[in-house]
């Protein structure tokens, strides 16, 4: 059986090297989300939440007026996760911000804890500094580990980077992780794409960086078929979400981030699937656009 409990918290890990925009991403999510989200950050100070938004401030946890909670890692990530899971305001979604040198895979491993479900790992890459970071021998390995841990890669800060440099960064990512989708987006836009859970507003995502479409009238007999379909979506797919009814009448919530697909049983009504894509045309059936050069 693949069905997981419907109350599992969909968990995303946000990684990326120093300066890639993780903090902007987290801040954007916390201040613009329409559903209660929990965020685990390395420290509150960096997130710098507007005081007007704070409703309760504890030692390691703050509650926001919009229903979100934000928890700092402190001494133990596991403890922070348990704190979130046991909090009376049980969130619909959990984001864990990895530190600038962390291997996101080590953090994604925590999503196997009872009560969580892995929703996919997003790694942000700073267009301006990525090449320099990669050639710095002190951190080459760290950078490459981060890229390879991603289900979805996002190049940020392209507004202040030379177009040629951005192209080089994209080529670098495609050589390091040939089958991982790459989006170009601001951390803010990406935040709304990853977190938006309200299916009604989901289709309103109208950033220049993304386009969206809705898929309805699907006819799957089982979860494996549904998963197969999701995995076969075009290679420029960044995000997909929705509630799908199988032919046996059971309803399932669908979460796709880049290469990662999660399906959980739910009591929610079917909505179809909203698919968010990058504007460029999808690549060939094997999903690769550039041959690996490792």
């Amino acid at each position: 059986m693949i069905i997981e409990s419907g109350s599992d918290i969909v968990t995303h890990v946000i990684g990326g090297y120093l300066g890639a925009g993780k903090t902007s991403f987290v801040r954007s999510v916390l201040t613009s989300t329409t559903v209660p989200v929990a965020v685990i950050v390395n420290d509150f100070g960096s997130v710098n939440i507007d005081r007007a938004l704070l409703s309760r401030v504890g030692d390691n946890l703050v509650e926001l007026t919009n229903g979100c909670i934000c928890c700092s890692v402190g001494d133990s990530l596991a403890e922070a996760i348990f704190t979130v899971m046991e909090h009376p305001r049980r969130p619909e979604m959990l984001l864990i911000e990895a530190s600038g040198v962390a291997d996101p895979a080590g953090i994604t491993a925590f999503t196997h804890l009872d009560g969580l479900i892995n929703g996919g790992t997003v790694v942000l890459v700073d267009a301006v500094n990525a090449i320099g970071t990669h050639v710095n021998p002190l951190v080459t390995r760290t950078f490459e580990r981060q890229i390879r841990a991603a289900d979805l890669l996002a190049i940020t800060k392209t507004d202040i980077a030379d177009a040629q440099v951005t192209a080089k960064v994209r080529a670098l990512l495609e050589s390091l992780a040939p089958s991982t989708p790459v989006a170009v987006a601001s951390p803010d836009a990406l935040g709304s794409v990853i977190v938006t859970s309200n299916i009604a507003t989901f289709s309103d995502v109208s950033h220049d960086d993304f386009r969206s479409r809705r898929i309805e009238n699907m006819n799957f007999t089982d979860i494996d078929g549904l998963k197969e379909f999701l995995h076969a979506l075009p290679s420029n797919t960044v995000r997909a979400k929705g509630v799908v009814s199988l032919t046996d009448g059971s309803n399932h919530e669908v979460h796709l981030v880049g290469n990662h697909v999660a399906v959980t049983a739910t009591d929610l009504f079917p909505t179809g699937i909203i698919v968010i894509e990058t504007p460029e045309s999808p690549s060939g059936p094997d999903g690769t656009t550039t041959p690996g050069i490792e």
Partner: protein
Amino acid sequence: MGTLAECAEWGITNIDHRFSELVLTAGFVEAHAHSMAGMYHEIPYVGWFAREMPDGTVVEGIRSTDALIDRLRSIAEVTPEGESIVVTGFDPIYLDTERLNADHLDKASTTHPIFVFHANGHLATVNTATLSKYSIGPDASAPGVGRFADGRLNGELREPAAMALAREEFRHIVRTVSSPETFEHFSAAMRNVGITTVADLGNLFHVNERSRQQIRDMTIADDFPIRFVSASRLGGATSDVNEALEHVLAARAYAHDKLHFPVVKLVLDGSIQGFTAMVSWPGYFTGEDHGLFLVPPESVVDLFRPFHQAHIGIHCHCNGDITSQVFLDAIEQLLSEHAWLDHRHTVTHAQLMTPAQMRKAKNLNVAANFFVNHMWFWGDQHRHITVGPDRAQHLNACGTADRIGLSYSIHTDAPVTPPGHLHTMWAAMNRRTPTGDVLGDSERISVDRAFHAVTIDAAYQLHMDHLVGSLEVGKFADMTVLEADPYEVDPEAVADIGVWGTVLSGRPQPRSGS
């Protein structure tokens, strides 16, 4: 201070003879330990080396899997059925018996969940009762859940994400290491081995008012037995350093005679025996290089700047030589921006620091704190596995530091190695390994250098040499009370000297059980 005759000139006639058969020295100063060293009151110790517990009793080392099973069985006999048994410090690196697995632990108990936390901190081995409790079955998909060759679960849970699957047992450890009881046992354990001032290097007592008040309350009682140096840990992000500085400055308002906030701590890399230290060419002797920076190296200067400018000392964990260099380069940059010459910033662990780095450190007024206990606890592994025969000779190069004139201390990093400066002195003076090797004859130091390293030179790098570290008029009357004089005994016997206890601010504090 002085001879009996000199004291009499001050009109002192009330002579206290209680220590006439013992040796009084300046109180030992430990500049790098951790308060979690008091955890064994709650989580039994099952390591390879015998270790003294905070209550003064000695737990014999576990030298085989069978010995571990016996120990667990005896714990199970006094543990109500169904309750968990969590033990720590298991160190299979010296065991030549079969690798510990769930089948072994099932022999100790099938009705108590058992969780054996390994000394390296990266691994736990659990029994079948634990696997069943959390429904961890053959189809478990979590990374780090270990298996036998036939696919059956072997009871290994690798790295925190997998260890946390055994939720209650893992949390028991996380909570115990920071509990007030652990802190109390830590302070007793330090007094028992003759430490009068100890730095808990890298804690979070500074971060909010509640924890600042808590540490003040825990340390202010008259009978609190040590002078506690609370060294605040810096996190990973650069954007919050100014707030971190505010927290440290706010914490200083809670200081008193037995509570000090002189320095902050940053961890820059991993460990040599874990292959996670940043080691330069030719890298590790055997094994795969997993070297990693724990903060981005280019952010180090920005992380340190506010503290340097606020004249707060920085102790930086650098096991590898690459990290030592990054730290020294950062300090050089900060000094060119802001000329605080008396900063005493310190490379702590400093195990692979090169002679060139030591000369640069000396010129920059940087101090070192060597993890010289490694020569005993992992010396053979360093010689044969991690760094090889040549570099193992110069690990924790106290002799070279002396020739260069670099100020240094030596430390235990308790609970990583047992607390106690007679052992660190012995390790620095003899550099002997468990198999009898002497690693780096030329790096051995004299008893006089070793004694200074554990007293005044440790106080110096904590910016506390005007208060502790030597017996001088105007400083605290902190003394270590020994049963023999380290300057008189055979250098090989320094570690075996008995400790009566300490004197703190003139108040005698016998060790537990005496």
